[in-house]
């Protein structure tokens, strides 16, 4: 891990937990249902050949095809059940992606 730098809060927590020997305490999605769990397919990250060339082109065009059926486990909010209106301001993902919001767990979810 010494050659890797955390790029987000979760990764930073994981690094600190590792230093404290508490990796088992860092559990993804523990604070609330933020994403879909229908599949553990890695989504945008890699294609079936282990690269990126066979991902949907452009990748924004794949947004609703994957988020509507809860294809991704965590990269987008769960629009199938918990956050139905997440994409309502962005009917065209390629053009409107800047209008997509971010979902944070409400206090009552914590």
């Amino acid at each position, binding site marked *: 891990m010494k050659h890797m730098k955390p790029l987000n809060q979760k990764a930073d927590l994981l690094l600190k937990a590792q230093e404290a020997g508490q990796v088992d305490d860092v559990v993804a999605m523990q604070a609330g249902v933020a994403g879909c769990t229908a599949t553990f397919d890695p989504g945008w990250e890699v294609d*079936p050949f282990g690269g990126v060339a066979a991902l949907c082109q*452009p990748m924004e065009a794949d947004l609703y*095809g994957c988020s509507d059926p809860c294809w991704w486990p965590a990269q987008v909010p769960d629009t199938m059940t918990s956050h139905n209106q997440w994409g309502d301001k962005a009917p*065209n993902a390629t053009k409107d992606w800047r209008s997509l919001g971010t979902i944070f767990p409400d206090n009552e979810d914590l």
Partner: protein
Amino acid sequence: MSINYWMSRLGLGLLLLLGVQQSVLAKDFIVTMSKPNNLYLIDADTKAIVKECKLEGIMNPGILVMSPDNKIVYILSGYWENVYGVEVDTCNIVFSAIQSGDGVRAKTIGSLAVSKDGKELYTIQNRTKLHRDHFEVLEPQLTVYDTAAGLKAKPLRTFPAPRRITVMATGENGKVYASGHELFEVDPQTGKFSVKIANASWDRPTYSRPDVLAFWPIGSQNNEFMLLYTAMEFKDTSKKEVSKAVWGYETVNLKTGETAIDDFAPLEVIMFSGVRSPQHPDKLFGVYTQLSKHDLATDKLIKRVELPHTYYCINVSTDGKFIYVGGTADDIGIYDAESLERVGEIRLPSGGDMGVSTLHVFSRPS
């Protein structure tokens, strides 16, 4: 020449004339949906939007099946929970089924089909009981609706169903065909599920289980329920060393009930959906970021072209001369089935994404 002779010639002439008129008047139409809530009936020849229905709150996911007379489109909506029947020429909502209720949430993952006589609609409900402090996963069920039941239709019959069912189709024999970890034949009168084409249990000792992305209820042009699969072929039954990865197809002839399953190509590109025309059932077209044309008789790739962007859903014109690619974004691409040259496109006025919505093509008098 007797009078009977001339009467028979006159009758034959009239029949020919009527037949010609029918073929002249029949045109291809495309039906699809785009976000936020737009249903389109499109003249495939002129590329003109014949009818646009703005159906408030009715889209996601927008998976569609058509009534046998192609007048009513049944839309899976309400975040995979509700089904609406909409007259494509008038935008009138003539049917609805609200599947969740009484503390049970029911999701249908693309599993809807209409009987060949148009009288019954079938869905698979994946049900969850919503308790105050926990969820309870219930057994999925095949649900049968009367399409004449109007709005807020209640189930006619329900039967236990296997998990993991996605798209379905109906045969002229009255059976329902459902894609799951096997391809099932279902008797909608008794609820009996039987394996029509083995997938998870297929007898291929040197193969992995097939991976089937069954999401687009197309195939009506060739009256078949055809799905593509990928699988790994190993060098021997120990399955330690991969020999090759393959594409294959499996199909149920919806007129005769006959089945076929076969590999046809190496796994070189992704294809999300495939289609065949009745004129050339030995040619299979598949789409994703490329459009591919395969010869099923020789297992040769005839041609492959790059597309401007990814398209999920493919279909074919009634005469087999044009391939339509849609879903995903906001345009439908039209390709010459012989050369795979892009010969046209249709921009959907709403500008919204089609996502996983279905691209139906059918012929009927204009």
